[in-house]
């Protein structure tokens, strides 16, 4: 029984991994298939997508037609259980009362973490994204280049399955031929945006998402991922064969009972558990990394939430992958509250989110569109990568880093909210209302800015000096600050989206404010929190080295978003996994040489 309770754990393991999402899942996968004995601690409950995912359930079968509530923040059918913006008994605090200086912290408490509900958008960082300071003098360079991470991006894409096309565009890397799965056909609003985007120079094209548009090739991929390891190849092939291709229905945010998209619980953990080398302890809330007098990590102290008791698990190596915020919290609370791996004083510093703003438009051309099925791959098919690198390089822009555009049409399953804006049907009721609803349904489009935030001194988290959670563990206090770069970026995005909508003959909806501070998504709301234990070239100005290994404690690794030295516009999950796989390979080699 690989999902175990605290009392069934072994006296000692090779590696203890805190967290079961993209970073923890990738670590457990790579290490257990290499023969290391691992134990994974997950703060939430065990979660089984095959048995729990509401695939075809309709809104009218749910309380309040499935609409969001404080207990299910993204709607009843969202896969997230026991988590959200607030977790009962586990508060966090804000250093400022000003809204624009606050951070919103999304915390799932379930096996697989955020990977169960995430958007599946899987973009590679480009070469510029690893060396931003070298290009414009802002932020930090990574101690890793694109070329070093490229093979790991490829391996992750082959393992999890990513659809998309190679565009050959600047700083938007292609994958090797045959790696990406076929992209899905464009939907009406996506094709229309592509057509009109062209006239403004905005390149809408196929996005990359971790959804299987055909079954994975279990005959050839495992040998490419695990050369010279037939046992691993067999387990991975079995796991790949257990995943079905997408059947073009149901939103990916619900999770997927057939494994057609990536979530840690259906892709990373099954083969890892099949090795027999992985124990998973659910309801295990990590509190501290245990260190000995020589400064080496010896294991993890955690709360068994089923009993409220403190427990210890021992291991030769500790990996933290608990999310940037939670990883920082564990580091700062360790060593009796004196902290570990923090000789630089940078643990908790340079937290970043993705820069976001949204603009919706109503497009008359899309009115009265003949009904047709646009469910597609349960998420976006098209996006526009950042297209103004040259303009930025030549100093024509008033912000330093780019954004990509995520877009959505509205011919999707009505989710319990009025699918037609009230103002479009003003004064109507009866059959004329139903006719108007049919006319306007599907005529909305929305565009989202997803941009790079430059790390700054004012965005960080620390331990609150007074507030503790229900187990008596000090909680995080957040600080947040936007720079002119982010505010000018969202202003540019808003203007651009307005032009696009008008070029399509449409009208911008609900122009709330002209002030960027009022229309930028608040910190944390895009749920791309990274940083807090950044990697760098020297111990004095970074927490981790180029192998996700802390400078101070060489048998302590961090494999979530915390080591990110920058947060490019590309969604962080694929990079978390590629870095984790690379770090795991390094960990295996170091362990083999007796260096840990």
């Amino acid at each position, binding site marked *: 029984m690989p999902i175990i309770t605290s009392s069934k754990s072994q006296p000692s393991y090779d590696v203890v991994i805190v967290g079961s999402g993209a970073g923890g899942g990738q670590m457990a996968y790579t290490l257990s298939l290499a023969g290391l004995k691992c134990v994974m601690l997950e703060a939430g*409950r065990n979660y089984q997508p095959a048995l*729990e*995912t*509401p695939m*075809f*359930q*309709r809104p*009218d*079968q749910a*309380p309040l*037609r*499935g609409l969001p*509530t*404080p*207990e*299910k923040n993204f709607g*009843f*059918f969202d896969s997230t259980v*026991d988590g959200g913006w607030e977790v009962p008994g586990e508060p966090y605090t804000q250093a400022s009362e000003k809204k624009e200086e606050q951070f919103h912290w999304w915390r799932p408490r379930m096996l697989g973490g955020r990977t169960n509900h995430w958007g599946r958008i899987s973009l590679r960082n480009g070469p510029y994204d690893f060396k931003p300071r070298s290009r414009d003098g802002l932020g930090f360079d990574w101690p890793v280049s694109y070329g070093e991470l490229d093979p790991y991006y490829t391996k992750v894409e082959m393992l999890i399955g990513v659809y998309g*096309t190679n565009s050959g565009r600047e700083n938007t890397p292609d994958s090797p031929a045959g790696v990406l799965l076929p992209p*899905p*056909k*464009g*939907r*009406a609003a996506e*094709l*229309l945006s*592509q*057509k009109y985007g062209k006239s403004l120079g905005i390149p809408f094209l196929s996005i990359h998402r971790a959804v299987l548009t055909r079954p994975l090739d279990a005959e050839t991929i495992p040998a490419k991922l695990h050369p010279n390891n037939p046992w691993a190849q067999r387990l991975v092939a079995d796991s790949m064969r257990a995943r079905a291709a997408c*059947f*073009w*229905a*149901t939103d990916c945010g619900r999770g997927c009972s057939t494994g057609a998209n990536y979530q840690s619980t259906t892709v990373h953990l099954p083969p890892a558990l099949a090795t027999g080398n992985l124990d998973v302890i659910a309801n295990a809330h990590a509190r501290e990394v245990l260190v000995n007098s020589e400064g080496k990590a010896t294991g993890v102290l955690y709360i068994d939430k089923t009993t409220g008791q403190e427990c210890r698990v021992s291991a030769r190596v500790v990996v933290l992958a608990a999310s940037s915020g939670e990883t920082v919290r564990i580091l700062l609370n360790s060593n009796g509250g004196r902290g570990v791996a923090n000789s630089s004083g940078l643990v908790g510093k340079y937290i970043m989110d993705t820069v976001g703003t949204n603009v919706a438009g109503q497009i008359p051309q*899309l009115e009265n*569109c*003949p*009904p047709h*099925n*646009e*469910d*597609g*791959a349960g998420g976006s*098919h098209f996006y526009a990568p950042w297209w103004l690198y040259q303009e930025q390089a030549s100093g024509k822009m008033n912000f330093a880093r780019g954004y990509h555009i995520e877009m959505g049409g509205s011919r999707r*399953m*009505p989710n*319990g909210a*009025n*699918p037609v804006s009230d103002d479009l049907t*003003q*004064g*109507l*009721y*009866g*059959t004329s*209302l*139903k006719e108007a*609803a*049919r006319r306007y*349904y*599907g005529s909305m489009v929305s565009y989202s800015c997803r941009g790079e935030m430059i790390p700054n001194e004012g965005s960080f988290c620390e331990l609150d000096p007074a507030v503790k959670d229900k187990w008596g563990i000090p909680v995080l206090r957040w600080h947040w600050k936007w720079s002119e770069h982010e505010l000018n970026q969202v202003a540019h995005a808003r203007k651009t989206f307005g032009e696009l909508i008008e070029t399509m003959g449409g009208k911008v909806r609900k122009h709330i404010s002209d002030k960027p501070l009022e229309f930028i998504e608040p910190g944390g709301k895009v749920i791309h929190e990274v940083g807090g234990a950044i990697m760098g070239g020297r111990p004095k100005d970074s927490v981790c080295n180029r192998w996700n290994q802390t400078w101070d404690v060489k048998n302590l690794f961090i494999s979530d978003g915390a080591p990110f030295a920058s947060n490019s516009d590309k969604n962080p999950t694929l990079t978390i996994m590629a870095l984790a796989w690379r770090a795991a390979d390094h960990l295996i080699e170091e362990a083999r040489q007796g260096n840990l």
Partner: protein
Amino acid sequence: MNDFNPARLSRRAVLQWFAATAAALSAGDAGLSALAPPAASGGTPSGVGYGTDPDLLRTYQPGEAWPLIFQASQKACVSALCDTILPADHLGPSASSQGVPAFIDEWVSAPYPLQQADRPLILEGLTWMADAAVLRFKKEVSALDEAQMRELCEAVCNPEGLRVGFKNAVRFFNKMRSLAMGAYFSTPAGWEAIGYVGNTPLARFDGPPVEVLEALGIQQTVV
């Protein structure tokens, strides 16, 4: 001072009548603006939600996640109003046949802040409707015929109503219409009525059909 003439009135006359009724009854903004606590006009919500880890696979009927608070007269009033907003016609069945009134009941009974904020407006609005029906037609709302229901709706379905002292009645009607549309169009019959096609497994996804591409002047660019 109250005009009970059953003859169909002009739109302008209807508005004037409502203004007069409002003055007589204090049932326009004066009646609605107080927004008294709902205890007097309905049950009290339970205050307990479905928790952070509900069973996502079972089917829930309104009343199963938390008790409903509408009294029989309120149910009848909501049902009549919802069926006037979304009647049975060539586009599909009526709102009441799709569980919309029960959803409204579930909404006002819900323990969450968003729904609790709507509760006074909806409960007071229903009281106002009942009073208006008796005053105007000497009938309960559920006994009004179609023309009579339309007459009531005409006065409050439009922002024009704002000018004659019916700000809250207009807010009430728009809230009910928005909730009813959300609830109606999230059912299979509602999907058909609005033109949503999906939630069914497909062997392949072909994108928009040719007639859609032609109508929009676009081409499929993913081959």
